[in-house]
């Protein structure tokens, strides 16, 4: 029984490899590195978002009034969501004239990460089962472009709980899907542009503290089968930057080129979601969001 010998031989695999492939986050392990990459960028705009919520925005922009949300989309029981694999691929009819994309100048720059004093807050690292219990699914959409994967890593999730009350005060979870990965699990580009192609899905019941992009003008929403979704786009420069030449603004060194970032924000079943995609087509982003909102039914986007 030669396969049996191989099964036994597998027992001599290095412990570091075994540890590396254990699904659940280990003690001391924080968010997945690639999620951290996005979070680091996104948290820059924390303070500005906080100001938005308080109704005062640096620069005097009026507060954004959220449109009323329709009834939450009901999802199938959690046990059927492992992962979402509809029997038939979803058909998404996109009426482009009804798709509103808010333009943004890019990431906010003047915020800092909240410091969670360990004397006051406890940190918990949840595994996939706990995520499924809390959010009802594994944050892996039914539609993922063929060239992207989760890189073998599950949901990255760290929650903070108030020691005094036991109440959860930060519950943000996220998962990334990229074209390639470094050894440490962080996303890697597979071509000569340093920015990797891929996207993240972030969820929070308490409200997402980090925003990827800040709209320049008023926030317009797009109808996704009855759910309003805010789509925002920015074109950002990537390096290397040529110090001998200036970009069109004349303020910065000339970049090697520009890439697209799209952020889709929406609420579903009382949970805030943000899909942040870089170097992806708008159509792909629309399909990802549609497959999250209603994986088992065809959908019309942009109104009838």
């Amino acid at each position: 029984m030669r396969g049996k010998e191989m099964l036994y031989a597998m027992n001599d695999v290095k412990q570091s490899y075994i540890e590396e492939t254990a699904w659940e986050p280990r003690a001391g392990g924080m968010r997945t590195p690639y999620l951290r990459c996005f979070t680091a960028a996104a948290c820059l705009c924390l303070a500005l978002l906080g100001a938005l919520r308080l109704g005062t925005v640096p620069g005097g922009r009026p507060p954004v009034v959220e449109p009323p949300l329709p009834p939450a989309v009901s999802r199938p029981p959690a046990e059927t969501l492992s992962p979402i694999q509809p029997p038939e691929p979803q058909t998404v009819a996109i009426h482009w004239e009804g798709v509103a994309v808010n333009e943004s100048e890019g990431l906010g720059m003047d915020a800092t990460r909240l410091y969670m004093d360990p004397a006051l807050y406890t940190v918990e690292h949840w595994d996939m089962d706990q995520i499924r219990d809390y959010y009802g699914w594994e944050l892996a959409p039914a539609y993922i472009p063929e060239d992207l994967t989760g890189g073998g890593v599950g949901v990255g999730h760290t929650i903070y709980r108030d020691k005094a009350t036991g109440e959860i005060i930060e519950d943000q979870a996220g998962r990334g899907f990229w074209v390639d990965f470094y050894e440490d699990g962080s996303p890697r580009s597979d071509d000569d542009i340093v920015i990797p192609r891929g996207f993240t899905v972030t969820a929070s019941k308490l409200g997402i503290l980090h925003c990827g992009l800040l709209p320049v003008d008023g926030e317009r929403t797009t109808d996704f089968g009855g759910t309003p979704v805010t789509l925002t786009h920015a074109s950002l420069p990537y390096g290397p930057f040529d110090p001998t030449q200036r970009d069109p603004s004349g303020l910065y060194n000339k970049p090697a080129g520009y890439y697209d970032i799209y952020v889709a924000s929406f609420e579903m079943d009382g949970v805030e979601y943000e899909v942040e995609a870089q170097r992806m087509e708008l159509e792909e982003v629309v399909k990802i969001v549609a497959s999250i909102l209603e994986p088992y039914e065809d959908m019309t986007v942009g109104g009838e």
Partner: protein
Amino acid sequence: MEDREIIAGLLVRDQTFLAALQEKYGPKLLRLASRFLSSREDAEEAVNDAYFRTWTTIPPQEPEHLFAYVAQLCRYAALEKVDWLTAKKRQAHLVELTEELAQCLPDPGPEREREGRELGEALNGFLGTLDREKRILFLRRYWYGDPIRDIAAQCAMGESKVKTTLFRLRKDLKIYLEQEGISI
């Protein structure tokens, strides 16, 4: 409790840390053993064997990776419990695993027989050539014994993509072992 605290407790022979180990990794170990054993009682026994072996080997051992260390003992205990003569009749999953792994082995040569440990070393060499994503797929399937469906769910891949990648990895491993002169 942190792994290093548990290891430190085991090193001073404090049994409460064995309970901490059980509490922290018990469900994962039981899941691992259950991949290879069809009966829950057998799986629980394998996990208990692993705790016992952990207790008797730390000290002198002081593992760097506690879960991996105990999981290795658990996996070994589970494989020891497998009744290989009858396993085929009752464990389709195990048959599937052994048949897939048999495809990795070169044809046996009369003079190049080697011990299992050398095969293990070669496996480590092969795993070192893989990128992280492929290594995870390979080990989740053949070390942890995970079903394809679960791996696809965890890695957010289609099942067909997982199968295709594993098929290519088995072929690559066969070539690697041939180059290393290994046959069983």
